[in-house]
């Protein structure tokens, strides 16, 4: 099996929501919000902006970076935990807007870990379906828009979309391995029922995530005879800066190896890992192994390792 990551793309809404703005509606100071999350600002989409529209923008950004024609896509995988629970999901709308007339388009109705699961599935399916576009698009702001705002959730989440092109054709990074896991006994600790506000038991989420993300990273690295110290960059779900720091500490690597942009975009759920990858890839990064990892509602979690192909 050969699978390669060719390019990433992202889209973020224009509207910046600062901690000062949320401070007025949550009763928490801007300093408290940053200290609890590391987040300084996030983006919220307009009410008219759809999950599909943001996903299309990220997809087009990715395909432009890859220099790859849209009509050659063999499969579309779309992760979105905030998407409608009705059918069809956003994959059909994104496929239509990309003018994909017959390529299969699959929805992964998963939140934070959705893009990781999408990449891992694409890794396995690319030999059959050719070039696979993985898109993750989330509109989290309506899920937190209660009155008054719940400071435990409203300060964290933002809107945005990310995308990645996976192919069996040789590309920039060769995907080596992936490990995916689910433990459904915690499904009520982070949940959204399709309407109203999301629910989050922060204590359980952080306690489980701080153990399971490093464990899955070590699992996949060990299978490839790699150590965390050999990894060039960790591209993780941007849940909370404090969690990213803890994952680095658990892996015994410096925090500079863990790419972070949660400060500017907040937690964009499944989109965050691909938005982070897009920005990281644009920094002309050093060659070497890279690790993706995510943890989210379900609980679903896991890790994927790739290495520079040349």
């Amino acid at each position: 099996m050969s699978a390669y990551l060719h390019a990433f793309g992202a889209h973020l809404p224009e509207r910046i929501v600062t901690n000062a703005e949320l401070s007025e509606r949550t009763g928490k100071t801007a300093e408290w919000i940053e200290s609890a999350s590391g987040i300084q600002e996030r983006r919220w989409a307009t009410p008219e902006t759809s999950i599909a529209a943001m996903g299309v923008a990220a997809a087009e950004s990715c395909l432009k970076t890859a220099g790859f024609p849209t009509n050659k896509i063999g499969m579309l995988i779309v992760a979105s935990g905030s998407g409608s629970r009705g059918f069809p999901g956003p994959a059909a709308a994104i496929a239509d807007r990309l003018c994909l007339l017959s390529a299969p388009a699959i929805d992964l109705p998963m939140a934070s870990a959705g893009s990781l699961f999408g990449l891992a599935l694409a890794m396995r399916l690319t030999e059959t379906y050719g070039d696979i576009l993985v898109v993750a698009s989330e509109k989290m702001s309506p899920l937190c828009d209660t009155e008054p705002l719940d400071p435990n959730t409203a300060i964290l989440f933002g809107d945005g979309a990310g995308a990645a092109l996976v192919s069996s054709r040789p590309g920039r990074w060769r995907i080596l391995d992936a490990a995916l896991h689910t433990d459904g006994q915690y499904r009520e600790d982070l949940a959204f029922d399709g309407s109203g506000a999301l629910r989050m038991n922060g204590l359980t989420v952080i306690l489980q995530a701080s153990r399971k993300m490093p464990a899955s990273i070590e699992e996949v690295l060990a299978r490839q005879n790699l150590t965390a110290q050999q990894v060039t960059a960790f591209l993780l779900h941007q849940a909370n800066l404090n969690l990213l720091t803890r994952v680095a500490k658990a892996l015994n690597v410096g925090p500079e190896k863990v790419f972070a942009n949660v400060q500017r975009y907040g937690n964009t759920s499944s989109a965050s890992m691909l938005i982070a990858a897009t920005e990281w890839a644009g920094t002309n990064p050093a060659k070497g192994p890279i690790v993706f990892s995510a943890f989210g509602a379900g609980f679903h979690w896991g890790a994927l390792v790739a290495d520079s192909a040349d």
Partner: protein
Amino acid sequence: MPDLSRQQRLRKLVQEVAGKSAPEDEQESLFESGLLDSFALPDLVSAIEKEFAIKVPDSDLNPRKFDSIARMDAYLADHM
């Protein structure tokens, strides 16, 4: 069976992780009192593992088990 010596060791760990003393009432919630937050909890569990030479399995990573000195003491009584 409460173990006063073990409870003292737990109080020392809470002090190290939270930077403040645990409440005198061993039943009082460390989270509701604001002594520990979600990011201090993983550190406390790691400190307990090291201090008492045990491994807390993921299936036991329930905040309720570590919510007070009394609950941590009860957990350790069952697992040591």
